[in-house]
Structures are given as C-alpha cells and as structure tokens.
C-alpha cells in the first residue's frame, strides 16, 4: 500500500528541465537577446541592479531572462553571484552635483540655476495603451541638447547657503558600514540604514512611504529635487598614490525637503530625506527618501509611533530576497511538526469531549 516519496532527485531534475522549457517558450520564435532586455526592458534591469546591489547591465539582463521576468528571482540570482565577488575597496563618495544630468526637476522652485530638465519620463503621458507598439513603428528622433549639462547645483545646496536646511553631516573619515559583511544590529547608523533601504524592496518602501503621507508618521515632504544621470566613480589606488576614475554609473537621486519645527537644541529649519538608486528609478528613490526621513524621527526628537519610523521593523523586513525566501519556505515539508500538532489537537478534542460527557 505505502509508497514512500522516493525518486526526489529525478523529480527535481525533471522539474528543472520543464522550467527551462517553459522559460524558452515557443521555440519557433527567436530567443530574446540580452541586448534586447538591457535596451528595451531597461527599467526592469535597473531595478534588478539596484536591489541586487550590483551595477552590471549585462548580468542583470541575463538574470531577468533566466528568471522569466520575475524580478525578485532575478535580484536573488544577482545577489547570489555578487556575494562570491572579491571586495577590493570602497570608492570615494560620488559627486552628484557634477552629474551629467539627463533629468532634473524640482517641485520647490519654479525655476532655478540649471533649470528644470524633464528628460525621459512617464510623467504627463496619457496612460492609453498604444496599439502601434504591438509592432515596431517608426519613431521620430529625440530632440536633445547638443551637450548634457554638468555641474548643476543641488537645490539643497542653494537652500543650505541661506542656512534654511540642515547641513549635510560632515565627512568623518570613518569607514562606511556594510551590512553584507557585518550583521546588522540596532540601533543602526544612518549609513547602514541607507544601505538597507537602497537594497530594499521597491514595493515595500513605496507602501511605507505612502503610509507616512496618509498620517502614519507624517513628515511634510517636498521634492526638493530629483536628478538622474551619469556620475563618475573614483577609487584610490594605493600603488599610484592618487585616485582614478574607473567608470561611470547611472543613478537617480532624490532629496526630500521636510518641515521641522525646531527643538530645544536646534532652530526651525528644513530637514532632509535622502534617496539614491542605481539606474533610472524615481519611485524607488522618492520612497527611500521619505522612509529615510521617517527613520530619523528619534534623532530629531519626534515621537516614534508609526511603522515607517521604527528602524527595527523597517530594516528587518525590507529585503525582498530574505522575505521571499522565508515566506516561500512554507512550501517545504513540515509534516513532522504538523504531526505533533495533529496529535495535540486530537488529544485536546478528546479531553473536551470527555469533560462534556462527564458533565451531562
């Protein structure tokens, strides 16, 4: 009667073969290329790079393809690869004021040095499905400035000149923390918090950010500025004795400007929430900036009452590779523990029935 669940090895192998087949889809159609994914699904690739914490478009495109478009699975693939890479140093802080800006908008000033530069944005598009895109329609060439602007002052610097906004914290020269090398402990410093948020799940941060707007830890935010473009990455080379530029990466930066009524120690001034993400990811950068500001509640002497202000809650649950692993592990067999519970429930039901009979 009893057939044990044998042949697990073969079953797994067959399941993986079937998966590969489904990933490939209709074999009469050409396989999608990494260039197509990196070029035409570029925002998916950006998200995988950001939450995978690895700036490499080719590998991210490969991960998206291998994961059949499941971005959390793709992020997991990148993370598992990233963790095997040697770490040979930290770069200088990137200088976003010297960005080759492709998009820059401010919601706090109508015009400002450097101007508003819309760049490639979904904003103001009418969300109407475009049947032409089912094919490959001819597109007019974009109208571009001959030269991308560089060295555009940040709104926060302009406000800072008047002392209206808190100053950027001074560089301490201490090494920046890395939660992938040291286990996170609480309370966590802002460098680790920002690292956690930068790797954090976009949807989770979006929901938390949204909750602050609806009153769960309100921060009165304004978008001081969002900018997106290429920045240079510089690293010290000990053998040379000076730093060299090793490449350029695309980042999106969001500086939120938030009200602050002042405290016994500090006069009223605007405060900052900061968001930065690889690639073009405004939703992520904005959400991150809102949550960063919320997490500063303690430091600024505000009441900590809402989930978005609770660093242990926010940081312990923002990593989607961890979250998905633990949620999905419920698929694994649990029948030993279930057996123990089954036995207990049966026993307790019998006890209740006996008591009832005795009472009758």
């Amino acid at each position, binding site marked *: *009667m*009893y*057939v*044990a*669940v*044998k*042949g*697990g*090895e073969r*079953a*797994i192998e067959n399941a993986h073969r079937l998966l590969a087949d489904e990933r490939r889809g209709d074999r009469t159609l050409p396989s999608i290329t*990494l260039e197509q994914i990196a070029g035409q699904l570029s925002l998916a690739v950006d998200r995988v790079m950001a939450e995978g914490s690895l700036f*490499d478009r*080719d*590998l991210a*495109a*490969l991960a998206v393809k291998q994961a059949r478009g499941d971005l959390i699975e793709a992020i*997991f693939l990148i*993370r*598992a*690869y*990233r*963790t*095997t*890479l*040697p770490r*040979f140093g930290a770069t200088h802080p990137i200088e976003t004021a010297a960005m080759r800006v492709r998009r820059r908008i401010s919601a706090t000033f109508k015009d400002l040095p450097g101007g508003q530069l819309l760049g490639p944005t979904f904003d103001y598009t009418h969300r109407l499905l475009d049947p032409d895109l089912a094919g490959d329609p001819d597109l007019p060439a974009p109208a571009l400035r001959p030269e991308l602007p560089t060295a555009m002052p940040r709104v926060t610097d302009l406000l800072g000149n008047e002392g209206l906004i808190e100053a950027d914290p001074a560089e301490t020269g201490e090494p920046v923390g890395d939660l*992938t*090398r*040291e*286990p*996170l*402990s*609480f*309370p966590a410093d802002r460098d680790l918090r920002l690292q956690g948020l930068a790797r954090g799940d976009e949807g989770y941060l979006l929901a938390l950010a949204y909750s602050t707007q609806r009153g769960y830890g309100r921060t009165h935010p304004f978008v001081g500025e969002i900018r997106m473009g290429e920045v240079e990455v510089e690293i010290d080379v000990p053998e040379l004795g000076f730093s060299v530029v090793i490449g350029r990466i695309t980042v999106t930066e969001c500086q939120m400007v938030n009200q602050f009524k002042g405290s016994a120690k500090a006069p009223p001034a605007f405060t900052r929430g900061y968001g930065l993400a690889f690639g073009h990811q405004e939703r992520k950068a904005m959400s991150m900036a809102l949550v960063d500001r919320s997490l500063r509640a303690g430091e600024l002497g505000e009441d900590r009452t809402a989930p978005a202000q609770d660093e*242990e809650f926010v940081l*312990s649950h923002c990593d989607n*590779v*961890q979250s*998905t*692993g*633990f*949620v*999905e*592990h419920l698929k*694994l*067999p*649990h*029948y*030993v*523990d279930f*057996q*123990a*519970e*089954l*036995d*207990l429930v049966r026993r*307790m039901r019998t*006890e209740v029935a006996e008591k009832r009979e005795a009472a009758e």
Partner: protein
Amino acid sequence: MNALPPTAATVAHDTPAYNFAYLDEQTKRMIRRAILKGIAIPGYQVPFASREMPMPYGWGTGGVQVTAAVLGPDDVLKVIDQGADDTTNAVAIRGFFRKTAGVRTTTHTAEATVIQTRHRIPEAPLAEHQILVYQVPIPEPLRFLEPRETETRTMHALEEYGLMHVKLYEDIARHGHIATTYAYPVKVDGRYIMDPSPTPKFDNPKMHRSKALQLFGAGREKRIYAIPPHTDVVSLDFEDHPFKVQTFAQPCALCAAEGVYLDEVLLDDKGGRMFVCSDTDNCEERRAAGHRGALAGDDISRKDRS
C-alpha cells in the same frame, strides 16, 4: 584578486570555479570564529555575517554555511529533512555539497561525520566523531513573546526568562498541559534558554549530554549557536507538570519500531491511515535486520530500498 567582473557572455559560457564547499576561505574563517564563540558560550546566539547563498533564505542557508565551514575533504555527509534522506530539499542540499566539495555522502547515520538536519534528530544515538548541524528558521526562543531583537538580547543578557515561564504556565491554566509540541524551549548548561529549531519535543532528550557536537545555523537571521558535547540540555517544565515527550499508540507499520517518531500517512479518503518511521535510515536498517511491521510486504520493502 580578480581582474574584472565577467561579462554576460563569459558567465553564460564558462562554468565558474568555486572554492571547496562554495564559500571562500575568509568567509569560512569568519563562520568558524562564530562557531567557536558559540561553543564557548553554550546556547548563546552569536551574530555572524551570513552570506547570500545560491539557495533561498529559509531553505537552510544557515545550516549550509555552518556545514561548509566545518566540512573537510575526508568528511562523510548526510543530509535529512523531516528525518528522511530523500525529501526534496535534503536531496538538493546533498547535491550542492557533492558538487561544490566533492565529499562522500551517505544516508547511513552511523557512517556520517557531519549530519545536516531540518526538523529532526536521528533516532540512533550520535557519537563523539559526529557533528549535527541544524537548520534554524527563527533562532530566538523569545521571539513570539517579544518581537524586538533589542529587547530579547537584553532579556538574555539579564537572564530574564519570566515571560517564557508565564507563557508555559498559561498553557497549563488553559489546557491542563503545556501546548507546545515542537521548538520546545530548553535551557542549555544552566544558563541560556535556547530554541532547539523546530524539531518535535520528542527529540529534545536526545540533545541532553549528546556525545556529538551540535551546531545551529540561522542564515536569514544571521545567528549561530552551539551545544558542545556532553552539555546539559533541559526542557523547561514545572515540578508538578514535568516535561513529557509524545508517544504513539502503535509501532511503525513497516519496521515495527516502538519509541521512535512516526509520520502519519493517509491511505484513502475514508480515514485509512498508517504510521511509519520519520527516520528513514533507521527504518531501512531495521527492515534489513529482519524486523517486519504490519504493512511491510516483502515486495514493497524491496522497492523502497532500491
């Protein structure tokens, strides 16, 4: 030092060469330091810089990292899940180490030098030369009483375990007995309250003064803890409500073993069911030695062993 990260093309076409047992030596050293600290402070949860592994968090990444750190080329590895060697995740983890470490693997408990497990402790007593590595989902025994890590660490530091005793007492007040059947809390070496990982409480007595070294790895929660050999491990209870393990009304239907943990297998939709050993190796060895349960037809048991 590697020169440049590989491009998509080289990743697609070259099989990357990984270090013995996957993890690099630096990482293994870091994990071994955490293990040594854990052994020095039995039952204390040591934070460690858990790495991202090529399998999901919650699927044994902690156990896999501990195994990778203690495994040597001469070791013989056994991996079980729910007591069985052939459950899918056990198969996957065994395959991982066969591939990345090339070590010999076995299903025989006595033959293994390192046993990685999820949810069970083998029925056969372990020996001095063996290491038992547990996969741990939530290492903190106080977590469901107090969700904050900052709080629970303080509670451990102050040995402030009243909350746990109140919980167990409330069980007795409400149900007449302690209604915890797995992950039943233990006190290690008279000091730290420890979560034995979600093993059934049936297995708790096996941890007490075990001759084998017991290591616990929680990857997602980034904690390692340990029970050195011959250490006292006491399940929490009260004088008038002493700790008791589960008992089964019938022996294993295949090998007739008594006093072992059994799985219930549903046979039909009319309430037909049978109870068989959860520890598959123990069951097979007993059948090989000629023990026969009520439902052990000769042909089936031969098929089982194939």
